[in-house]
Structure formats: C-alpha cells, structure tokens
C-alpha cells in the first residue's frame, strides 16, 4: 500500500481514537475529541498541502 493519503487517514484514525478513548469517558465526548483530532490531522495536512501547492520545490 503506497498511498500516502490513505496512510495519513489510517494513522490519524488510530491516533485520534487512541487519545479520545484515553482522555474522555463518555461516547459523546470521545466522538467529539476524536473528531476534532482527526480533522486537525487530516484537514491540517490537506490545508498545508494546498498552501504549499504553488511551491513544488
């Protein structure tokens, strides 16, 4: 599996689920924290990639 994007999504899912389970006790709280972390990782990377797109080198 060589898709960088797919690995990023899998990695973000593992890490955000881990921290949400560790730091929140309710399903609602976990979903909220997990969602925020996941969006921060995947969305942040995509936003950074978009900003860097005009500067390939």
């Amino acid at each position, binding site marked *: *599996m*060589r898709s960088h994007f797919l*690995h990023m999504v*899998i*990695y973000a899912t*593992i*890490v955000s*689920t*881990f921290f949400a*389970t*560790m730091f929140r*006790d309710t399903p609602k709280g976990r979903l909220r924290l997990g969602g925020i972390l996941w969006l921060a990782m995947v969305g942040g990377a995509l936003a950074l990639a978009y900003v860097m797109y005009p500067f390939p080198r």
Partner: protein
Amino acid sequence: MPERKAHDASDETLGRSELGRLAAIVAAAWAVPGLGHILLGRVQRGLLFAMLIWGSFALGLAHEGRLALRDPRQPVLSSLQVVANLGVGPADVAARIGVYGKPVYRFQGAPDWRSEDRVERIFRERARSGVSIYGTAYLWTAGLMNLLLLFDVWDIGKRRKD
C-alpha cells in the same frame, strides 16, 4: 486545591501489597498491550487499546518498518528509537527474531553501508523499501501508545482516574 488533596489522600491509602499488585499490572500492561486496563476492570477500553496497538504494530511490520538499532554515531536518537520499539513489549523481541534472526538491538560498531553482515544488510534493505517510512511510523506509534498506556494504568490503579 481540594481536588489535589483528595488525590494525595487516595495515594496514601494504597498499601504495600496493593502497590506491588499495581506494579505487576503495569508490567503485564507493557508485556501485553491492553491487558492492564482489562485487569483493572476496564475491559472494553482495554480491548479497544489492544486493537489499536496491535493493529498499528501489525501495519508497521507489514510495511517493513524499521526495527531500530542503536547506532554509536547517533547514540541518543537511535536509543530513543529503540525505546519506542520496545514499548510494545516482548512482541518487539519476537519481531526482531523474525526479521533479523536474533533479538539484536545495536549495530556491532559503526554501521558500514557496504557491510555484508546479515543484520546490517537486512536493516539496509528494509530502509530502502518504498513503504518503510510508513511502517516505521506505525511501529514507533504502537510502542509509544503502549508506553503512554502504562501511565494511564498507573493512574487508574492509584485511583487518580476512573
């Protein structure tokens, strides 16, 4: 801070035998990711943690992740990498035996990239693989997550956390 005082009081109520039991649970949590939470009665949470850590570890091995070796040229950084690998417990030893043929944790002297030493050759070939960077990230993440879980188990056992 009244909350802090309450925590300190609960720490003092743990007897010696309870502390010994907790230390054994932490050791079990290191040896088998997720087991610490299960032994403390957090079965669902423990199973989920186990799934995440074993999943990350398996993905790391499947993608030829680097099983770090202590490099005398970069002792601090490479030692930290070894610690991250060792976080998953004895599974790391088993992985090294499977990959290198023996539980090796350091280069024999400074690594030479033209060396025909079996361990160095395998290490080099895995590092060259196109997917090794992903595998390495998964392996280190699995180990570090498990190390973090040890603190969580300790806090639950000390009644600082539910």
